[in-house]
């Protein structure tokens, strides 16, 4: 079955430390891949996307993600987190027109 998996439910990171959020997908072909962020009570904001080409993609707010076909992964990274990065992060895959989301990873930032 086609699916997106985010293995980490909750991650706590210190302000200024680096952050990596994991995402694995299970599809026959490489889907289009996305990372969205959702702050409490808000909708989903697009951080970045991968369609094809360069496997390291840059997004907004200092985030980047690397597509690794051999590992079926699309992990999100940020070198130095800010308190405002506390939110829920969703990895998603586009199959034709449907977005399939992982269950999300909640990021807590401690001072």
């Amino acid at each position, binding site marked *: 079955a086609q699916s997106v998996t985010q293995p980490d439910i909750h991650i706590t990171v210190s302000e200024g430390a680096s952050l990596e959020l994991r995402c694995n997908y299970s599809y026959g072909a490489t889907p289009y891949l996305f990372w*969205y962020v959702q702050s409490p009570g*808000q*909708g*989903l*904001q*697009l951080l970045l996307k991968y369609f094809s080409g360069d496997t390291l993609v840059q997004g907004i707010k200092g985030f980047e993600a690397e597509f690794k076909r051999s590992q079926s992964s699309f992990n999100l990274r940020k070198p130095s987190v800010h308190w405002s990065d506390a939110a829920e992060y969703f990895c998603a895959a586009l199959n034709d027109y449907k*977005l*399939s989301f992982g269950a999300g990873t909640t990021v807590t930032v401690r001072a």
Partner: protein
Amino acid sequence: GAGVSQSPRYKVAKRGQDVALRCDPISGHVSLFWYQQALGQGPEFLTYFQNEAQLDKSGLPSDRFFAERPEGSVSTLKIQRTQQEDSAVYLCASSLNRVETQYFGPGTRLLVL
């Protein structure tokens, strides 16, 4: 430019009541989608419109759920005889076409008592 807007932002309904949720997509976006997000979960696909045509409604949970986009712009998701399990955030998204990036609205949080 303006993003996707949704109204109301919050809705409290008594069990058995009908509700209507509105979505205004980004101007010029041909494709429109509805998703349901249960508490602590990722969004789940409900239905997809290309202009005014509803091309996929496979994600609608039951026949109590109905969506329309009569003029190819604004869309309404209607839930008849609401049940407690309908409590969720309903997200609308739009895109230029079916395989382009989907941009989401702020969602409508529905609570059925």
